[in-house]
């Protein structure tokens, strides 16, 4: 090591302190912002989830989490059970596709909504839209396969993998709902 590395401006300690100070400053700022926003963010998250549940099952007035099944809800209207809400996920074209599926008490699909996916915009993300999504209501677990595999769901052209993934996730959710029905009766 030559002498110039040890002069005042470039001593390793000074450099390290400089970076450490920047990181500490950054940490303090982020910490403070988090401290003040965490509670509000949590509140908003719950509101958002309720909104998602409401758009899934219209007309329900109460959503109750199902004991022993994390993420599952029953939707009731004036005390009558009208739907189970079951989360499901499967592997799509670009990572996991997460859905929330509403299943009727007689184990047919009511509706689903995609809560998280990284599918190709303009191609795979058509799975969240009409006409693809319109094929699902009223189907039971046995019918939920894409046409290329001999089922009744017509896959989106150019996005067979996504179509398969979504269909499979919905099927899983319906089967999951069936176990809830059995357990309850």
């Amino acid at each position, binding site marked *: 090591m030559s002498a110039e590395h040890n002069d005042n*401006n470039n001593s390793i300690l000074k450099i390290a302190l*400089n970076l450490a100070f920047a990181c500490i400053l950054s940490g303090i700022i982020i910490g403070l912002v988090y401290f003040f926003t965490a509670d509000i*963010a949590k509140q*908003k998250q719950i509101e*958002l989830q309720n909104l998602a549940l409401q758009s899934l099952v219209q007309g329900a007035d109460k959503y109750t989490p199902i004991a022993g099944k994390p993420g599952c809800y029953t939707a009731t209207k004036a005390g009558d059970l009208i739907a189970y809400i079951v989360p499901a996920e499967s592997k799509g074209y670009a990572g996991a596709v997460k859905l929330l599926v509403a299943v009727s008490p007689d184990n047919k699909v009511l509706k689903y909504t995609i809560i998280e996916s990284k599918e190709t915009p303009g*191609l795979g993300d058509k799975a969240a839209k009409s006409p693809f999504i319109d094929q699902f209501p009223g189907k039971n677990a046995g019918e939920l396969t894409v046409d290329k595999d001999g089922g009744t769901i017509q896959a989106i052209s150019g996005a067979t993998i996504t179509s398969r993934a979504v269909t499979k996730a919905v099927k899983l959710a319906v089967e999951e709902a069936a176990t809830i029905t059995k357990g309850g009766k």
Partner: protein
Amino acid sequence: MKRYWDIFSKGLVLENPIFVLALSLCPALAVTTSVVNALTMGLTVTFVISMNNLIVSIFRNWVNPKVRVPIYITSIATIVTVAELLLKAFAPLLYKELGIYLSLVVVFAIILARAEVFASKNRPVPSFIDGFGMGAGFTLAMLIVGVIRELFGNGTILGYTVLGSWYPPALIFIMAPGAFILIGYLVGAWNIWSARIEKAKGERGETI
């Protein structure tokens, strides 16, 4: 005023981040499949790059040159994280839309490049304007690519159908290879255009 306009406008055409500096091409490919995505990404980058240039410029005399790059990255990450936390708390729906873009922005080459090339050597106000101009140029380029890709790949613009059902969408425009081909042609076109601008300026005897 003229000086500020020059700083701002060079990011739009002559030093356009995507078509001329060829920085941040990866997101240009990844998120320009639709106009909405391209615009959202562009505005997010404009915000972060302007703020980062401002902050780097304010602290430029305290940063040790040997650790400047990690410090710039820390600064970008701080801005992005704070923006993320604020959005989560006060605009969760917007956060849901912007979420994936925001975390991508941290590693954008163009933001680091402007901190290094411009903000670390200039006063805060010009630095902010430089960042804003670069962000605007980035947004412009993203929009051009996004409009072409969405129009030919899906027959729509901003989700509205422009080309009717007679038009079979060319899927290649939506996929990454289509974006590569398109950006290649656009870089070529951009070079012809900016060469003309420079030539015209040269003939008028202006310095570029």
